[in-house]
């Protein structure tokens, strides 16, 4: 009789422990899922801020600005851009990686209509999970013809 009562108590304790661990497991899963979505949101926000920072840096690079004093903003010199493209991707890759990080920066001439486009910097992340593309309208200056055209600076930042 005494042994049966003991067995019952043991069963009761086991059942309580089982329910406790099930609840704990639910709690952990819920917390994990919540943290995961929160981290994802944070990552998206960080990428978005990083993208704005890099886009700003790229569009204000003193190495690309058109000739003239005071400094002409939103104007890119085509010759400087072509020279910059080589330097930023070869000789000074480490330096510009600190500034532009994992990104692809291109310039397309839009008006007058042409098929001209340039890749200024291309350091894509091999296993990138997401990217943000920021187009910035710019004026393009060709020093050989001394003519201006209208273009777009596209900055794609990877994370």
């Amino acid at each position: 009789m005494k042994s049966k009562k003991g067995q019952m108590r043991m069963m009761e304790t086991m059942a309580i422990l089982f329910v406790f661990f099930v609840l704990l497991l639910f709690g952990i899963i819920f917390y994990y899922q919540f943290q995961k979505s929160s981290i994802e949101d944070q990552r998206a926000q960080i990428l978005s801020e990083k993208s704005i920072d890099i886009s700003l840096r790229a569009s204000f690079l003193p190495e690309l600005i058109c000739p003239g004093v005071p400094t002409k903003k939103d104007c890119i010199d085509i010759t400087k851009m072509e020279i910059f493209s080589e330097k930023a991707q070869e000789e000074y890759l480490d330096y510009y990686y600190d500034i532009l990080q994992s990104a692809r920066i291109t310039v397309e001439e839009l008006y007058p209509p042409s098929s001209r486009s340039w890749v200024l910097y291309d350091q894509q992340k091999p296993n990138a999970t997401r990217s943000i593309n920021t187009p910035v309208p710019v004026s393009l200056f060709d020093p050989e013809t001394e003519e201006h055209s209208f273009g777009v600076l596209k900055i794609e930042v990877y994370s």
Partner: protein
Amino acid sequence: MRKKKGQISIGFHWIYILIAGAIILIFFVGIALKQKDVSEQSISATVIQSLESIFTGAGLAEQTINYIEIPELEIAFTCDLEGYSDYSVGSVKTETPFQPIFALERVKDNVLVTWTLEWMMPFKVDNYMFVMTPDIRYYLIYDTSSRPLASEIEAALPTEISENINFESLDISEYFGIIDKNDYKVRFVFLSDTAFVSSIPLELQGMADRDVTAMVLSGTLNGGTISFYRKDGSGWMLTGSSPLIGSFTDDNPNFYGAVFSEGKEQYDCNLRKAFKRLKISSEIYLERALQLEPASIPDCHGIFFPDYFTNSQTGLIARAEQCSEKIEVQCDLKPNVGDQIFENNRLLGTAGCFDIY
């Protein structure tokens, strides 16, 4: 016998409760402490992330002032002789390998004011950003010979800075009358050798040595030598000297860089970043000119080919490379190669040729 067993049982029962209680208490105290650490780290990370975006924006547009309200946390700025630089809040930091940021080593206030100026050599090289807070007091000390410099600086300081930052211009005769206004840090800017006083005003002698620093200008706002000092008891201790590099702008950013830097280490380190950029920009300008020159009108060849542009530009590249490693007297490139490039550009412009920059 039975009673004794019960007594032992009750005793163990309480010991068990105490141990279990202590474990539970330690567990929750541990979680609270960990949570506090995580929360502090999270605040630091948020501040750093926000500062990064603010500094990026502020550093891009020259002649701009930003008034930024932040949580009152200590921000440490590092830029050492090895070339490593960052700023940090608590244990969270972000590296600044290319952006010249001039600030005292530590700032702590709920407001940050940033001011950006461009360095021209003679073309735009980079933007310098100066960081200051309202609880740092800056004294400009002048004598008869340097009074015009003080007026020039006062006129150059944007209204937003003179209204929000404690800048006081004082004649050398007023130096010993300076009182302790309970500032976080005090910075003296002696505008000439003759305005420099080797002892600290009596009222400030009680401040911590690290909180009182000074710089002495020997020369003009566009060239000369800067000597950096730190309070050492009742006097000054020289911490280093650097050349003042000139600029093709009315407000020489290199001078203001010295004003807002803690000492030679930070000043030189930030200048080295700018020289690195000068080297790259100069190479781009030289290659551009070499590409454009053959297509230009014959009159331009006369200006271009005597080689003085090519020589001065290659000279600039070589010197900029050296100065990106070490700041020396020869790094003040404005009087020689800078002026020459400026003149070449002017000649090319008047002859109807392409602009160098």
